């Protein structure tokens, strides 16, 4: 990947407009700290770029090296080198982690991986993220602890070697050792040329990887960009300076919905 250019991207979930014209250019080798108060669209942006079925793009494009990826299904986006580490990886009932890894790796290569190489690569990746490789025989994400899920996301990033990775609060719920370990993996991949967009609410991870750029998202738009010093400023002062110095209101303009908001979900075991 040379460039990901997000142009005037708007999207909605059900009838609520969440992204309201996002513009952001990401260049190869960038590591962007995506900042902003809770609920202003950061996760939505990353999920929309990856093709989540929850969001409907209403306007705009996202060009990966000139190709509008928003028309592609998620699997094709992945094959173009995009990767999303999920904030809350879902349980995938019935699917054994090992079978999933093998399918994912095979979908990225011309011919199926040999059993020997598969074993070698997964064992190494499990080691790198500090998980026991016997987890591969468990059902994907089912019964994993919060920390195990996060490490398992990073593990998949190691197996798939994306050219651009979106990390959505990968550090939430991690202990200090795990955080250091994940920062190391990110730094190693950066050195090999992987581009990153990283959402975090804590400066500890950002301090360990020192993103070269920062972008602040408010009410579905990127309102301010800067270098790493902007990330530091946010972590020290919060977001109130936006209003003071840049006259950017961090109040969301809520849409009033007159639809019913009752959602009923029934699953019995």
């Amino acid at each position, binding site marked *: 990947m040379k460039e990901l250019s997000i142009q005037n991207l708007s999207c909605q979930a059900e009838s609520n407009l969440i992204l309201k014209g996002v513009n952001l250019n990401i260049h190869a080798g960038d590591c962007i700290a995506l900042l902003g108060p809770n609920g202003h669209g950061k996760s939505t942006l990353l999920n929309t770029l*990856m*093709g*989540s*079925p*929850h969001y409907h793009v209403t306007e705009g494009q996202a060009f990966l090296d000139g190709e509008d990826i928003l028309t592609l*299904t*998620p*699997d094709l*986006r*992945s*094959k173009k080198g995009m*990767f*999303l580490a*999920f904030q809350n*990886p*879902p*349980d*995938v*009932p*019935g*699917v*054994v982690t090992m*079978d*999933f890894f093998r*399918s*994912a790796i095979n*979908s*990225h290569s011309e011919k199926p991986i040999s059993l020997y190489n598969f074993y070698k690569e997964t064992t190494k990746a499990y080691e790198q993220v500090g998980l026991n490789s016997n987890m591969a025989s468990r*059902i994907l994400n089912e019964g994993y602890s919060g920390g195990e899920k996060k490490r398992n996301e990073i593990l*998949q990033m190691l197996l*798939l070697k994306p050219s651009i990775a979106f990390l959505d609060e990968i550090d939430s719920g991690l202990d200090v050792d795990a955080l250091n370990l994940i920062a190391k993996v990110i730094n190693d991949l950066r050195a090999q040329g992987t581009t990153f967009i990283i959402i975090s609410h804590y400066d500890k991870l950002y301090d360990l990887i020192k993103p070269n750029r920062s972008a602040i998202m408010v009410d579905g738009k990127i309102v301010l960009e800067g270098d790493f010093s902007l990330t530091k400023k946010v972590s020290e002062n919060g977001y109130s300076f936006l209003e003071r110095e840049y006259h950017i209101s961090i109040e969301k303009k809520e849409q009033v919905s007159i639809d019913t908001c009752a959602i009923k979900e029934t*699953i*019995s*075991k």
Partner: protein
Amino acid sequence: MTSSQKNPYLSDEIISTDQTSAYLFTELNDGEYHFVVDETHSLDLTLIDLSSSKFNLKLLIDLKRDAHLSLSIASFQYSNLNKTFDIYVKHLGDASSSFVRFAGINSSDNKLTFIGTSLIPNGIKKVETRQEGRINNLSSSAKSEVSPVLLINDNDVKASHGAALGAYNPDALFYLTSRGISREESQKLIIKGTLSPIINKLHDESLIKEVNDFFQDRKL
């Protein structure tokens, strides 16, 4: 006695030795069969249905004193015809037990039905029973029904039932596809994963391979 068979001829049966049987069906027709499990004996029966036929299969199983039934059914519905499994377990003797579990995948526009009933008559003690059904709909127009029924007429029993029915979680599908796995391949992983605990009970390598090949070669 342990056996694995493909498309066996089903008939009424009295089970008077412990029996473990696993059957793979690539064709299945309407029928009503009556099994009786004799005192102190057990029947461990596995049915795997990959047929494309229309059927209403009714199994009546009587359990005498201290008789045990374990019945596992896996069904893949992809045909344009309706399929019904109707299982009726009668606990005729004390201390008898039955465990019935059904796992279904419905990728058709038609109906897949599981009705599992356990009857415990008045005066029959220390019975244990469970009826469990789970169907994943992979097609938006699939119609599925799971109905685990307990008819309990005595109070000294352990009985439970469970039903899970619905579309496969779209988040889980998104997760799989976001790793480069096509939608079709993701669905195959889900199907295989859901049915494999039951498929593995075939215990016959060539039959297990036949099932796996069936899914591998299938266009969903």
